[in-house]
């Protein structure tokens, strides 16, 4: 599910001009419970955030900076573990009752920070609260959920109007946060948003807006008291100043780094830049309905024209991995047998000539200013086969406005876009871009539509995998996109910190450890 990766939060530092280049690349940096480490002493961990949380009510936010904080205060029903497997969170296990019902068995003896029990009623309350339009939640994953049914104090059913095979995965982040019903009813929404109470590893201490958020270890955490005593998120939009702060000892972890920013740290001793695989894929959407791109030979030619490996090496300093299509390799549905396009200028030229464009042609390549360098580099490579792609940069908010507008041609013939699939299911990566009636789709292919329907409506993994494999082959053949890469997550840490991120990107710090304290 490509969530909140596009502009929202990151625009901030773009507008500040502080992280000009591919901000979106590193923005999903997240820590993931890391294992190992020495005994816990009274320790404080300071982590940079590229921008502040907008609200601490988990149902009213839909952006990673907020989520990065909240994941430490709240728990979700399911959890992506360090090896990217979906494991139990507040729900110990779950099963599909029928096509339209998922049953969750809850962990017992979990309480909120205020002592309120976290039971089926709380879960039902949370789900209902999220899908109630009055909540004005920007979270969209649960759009198929029609309600939650309490079966017993530790069992709850989620009912959907259509089959949703990946609902459990969707509950591992934004959609799956469980909030305390009594507390909210007593104190009101506004108070809750400033003084959140959850079941998570840390309790909320203090929020100085746009400056820092302080959390304290929750001694009664069901999964064991975290070794970090105090967790502070410092808002620092400028990567160079946060790196400076890291070097001067004001910070322990700098997140949200771009490849360019990461280079600045150089070989300074005592710190390191960690590159960890991510699930955010980048590609160029092509207008397959009009103009020269209507011809699939042209689309194939453009894919052959791109030297993605050089792009990764030069523009991203190697902080990415090639993907054959839109699906990251960690996701369910990825088929390693599908081969990416070969960089082959001669072939590209001959395909263009075949399509009647031997002399090349001109078109527009739109991108957000955040992706300026890569867009320009792509334009440079296309120029080598005679295709003049004029780069048109839009500020991230405008870019997003046009991306989601009703006019699918609002961004011109080609636009560069990224898409994160944090559910780690190919379904999320494809959902908005492939089926012809989806918002960002510019490809009308009945076969593809049928395959999407299959994978979206079946709960059987094998059926789904088959559909995905077929889809990936079809996407290579038809080339409705220019396929690029999945970006790595970059963060810088002081040597005294021990932790590791997972592929999807929230700063869950429960198992982080500090050495030498």
């Amino acid at each position: 599910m490509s969530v909140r990766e596009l502009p929202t939060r990151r625009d901030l530092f773009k507008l500040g001009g502080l992280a000009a280049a591919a901000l979106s690349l590193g923005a999903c940096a997240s820590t993931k419970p890391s294992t190992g480490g020495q005994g816990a002493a009274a320790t404080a961990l300071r982590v940079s955030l590229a921008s502040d949380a907008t609200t601490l009510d988990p149902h009213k936010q839909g952006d990673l900076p907020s989520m990065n904080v909240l994941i430490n205060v709240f728990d979700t029903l399911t959890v992506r573990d360090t090896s990217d497997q979906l494991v139990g969170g507040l729900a110990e296990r779950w099963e599909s009752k029928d096509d339209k019902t998922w049953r969750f068995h809850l962990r017992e003896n979990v309480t909120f920070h205020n002592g309120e029990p976290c039971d089926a009623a709380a879960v039902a309350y949370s789900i209902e609260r999220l899908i109630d339009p009055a909540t004005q939640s920007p979270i969209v994953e649960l759009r198929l959920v029609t309600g939650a049914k309490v079966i017993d104090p530790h069992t709850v059913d989620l009912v959907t109007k259509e089959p949703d095979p990946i609902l459990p995965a969707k509950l591992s982040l934004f959609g799956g946060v469980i909030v305390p019903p009594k507390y909210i009813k007593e104190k009101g929404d506004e108070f809750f948003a400033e003084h959140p109470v959850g079941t998570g590893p840390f309790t909320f201490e203090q929020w100085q807006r746009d400056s820092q958020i302080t959390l304290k270890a929750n001694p009664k955490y069901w999964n064991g008291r975290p070794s970090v005593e105090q967790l502070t998120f410092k808002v620092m939009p400028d990567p160079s100043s946060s790196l400076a702060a890291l070097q001067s000892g004001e910070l322990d972890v700098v997140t949200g780094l771009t490849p360019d920013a990461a280079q600045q740290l150089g070989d300074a001793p005592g710190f390191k830049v960690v590159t960890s695989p991510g699930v955010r894929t980048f590609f160029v959407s092509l207008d397959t309905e009009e103009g020269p791109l209507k011809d699939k030979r042209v689309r194939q030619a453009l894919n052959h024209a791109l030297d993605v490996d050089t792009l990764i090496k030069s523009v991203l300093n190697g902080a990415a991995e090639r993907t054959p299509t839109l699906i990251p390799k960690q996701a369910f549905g990825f088929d390693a047998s599908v081969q990416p396009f070969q960089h082959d200028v001669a072939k590209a030229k001959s395909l263009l000539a075949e399509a009647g464009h031997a002399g090349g042609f001109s078109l527009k390549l739109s991108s957000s200013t955040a992706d300026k360098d890569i867009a320009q580099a792509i334009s440079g490579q296309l120029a080598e086969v005679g295709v003049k792609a004029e780069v048109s940069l839009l500020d991230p908010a405008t870019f997003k406005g046009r991306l989601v507008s009703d006019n699918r041609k609002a961004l011109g013939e080609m636009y560069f876009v990224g898409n994160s699939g944090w559910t780690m299911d190919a379904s999320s990566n494809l959902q908005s871009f492939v089926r012809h009636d989806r918002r960002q789709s510019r490809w009308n292919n009945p076969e593809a539509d049928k395959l999407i329907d299959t994978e979206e409506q079946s709960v059987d993994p094998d059926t789904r995998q088959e559909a995905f494999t077929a889809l990936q082959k079809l996407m290579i053949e038809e080339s409705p996109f220019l396929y690029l890469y999945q970006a790595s997550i970059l963060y810088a840490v002081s040597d005294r910190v021990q932790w590791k991120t997972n592929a999807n990107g929230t700063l869950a710090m429960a198992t982080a450890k500090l050495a030498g304290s």
Partner: protein
Amino acid sequence: MIGFIVKRVGHTLLVLFCVATVAFFIVRLAGDPVQQMLPPEATIEQERALRASLGFDRPLLDQYVSYMTGLLGLDFGQSVFFHRPAFEVIMERLPLTIDLAVAAMAFTLIVSIPAGIVAAVRRGSATDTSVMASVLVGQSTPAFWVGILLILIFAVNLQWLPASGTGSPAHLVLPAITLGLYSAAMIARLLRSSLIDVLGEDYIRTARAKGLSGFKAVTAHGLRNASLPVVTVVGLEVGSLLGGAILTEQVFSWPGIGRLTVEAITYRDYPLMQATVLFLAAVFVIVNLVVDLSYALLDPRVRLS
């Protein structure tokens, strides 16, 4: 004097009314907060529902009328992203911007007033030349560039001062210098030329004919008179200070009104955008109102008329 005050207050309100109106319509040109709030894969129904629940699907005129009537009761609306009253959000950031503005103003005045006086009194001397050269450099350097250089030198290389963030007076130093530099150059130059004008006035000659020393003539008769045009410009400078604050707060991650404005713009958070614009405008016009009134206090010709 009373008539003057009433007239000026009236102007101020009129300007604020116009700013509010322009802000209302211009932010709606820039795009929709709903599109920024939802992830791209949201369905059109979800988008429509959210828009309706926020009230942004109502006719524009309707929204305008309720926005303007809200303003009468100091209700700037609810921030879409912060889920709180926009006014409250602003008030929360205000102290930081005030800190920054006060520090920048202090820097500006401490640097510019002595520089302007010395340059004017020693007109044509080496001191004057070097002050004027600094003034030109200060006026020619974009604020963001100054900020970057200061960070590079004092935070990154020398590590004397923090590069960004808040918390201690040390955090204020670089942003305040960045923000105040242009104004300092501006005011030093203005004070100099204003003082040179005043020093050529007949009443300075009268003072010298009475036997006052050149220095005494400047301090007793020159400064106050020369400050009149400077005071007016200081008021207008507040405008560039506020504009500069937007850039400076970005460069130094200073969580004040300037950054809030950019955030609001980024989110297309209508109510917050309107509120910050109106707030900045209000600060500007009120400062200028105060400047006009203090002008009147300084100048008996206005005060007593």
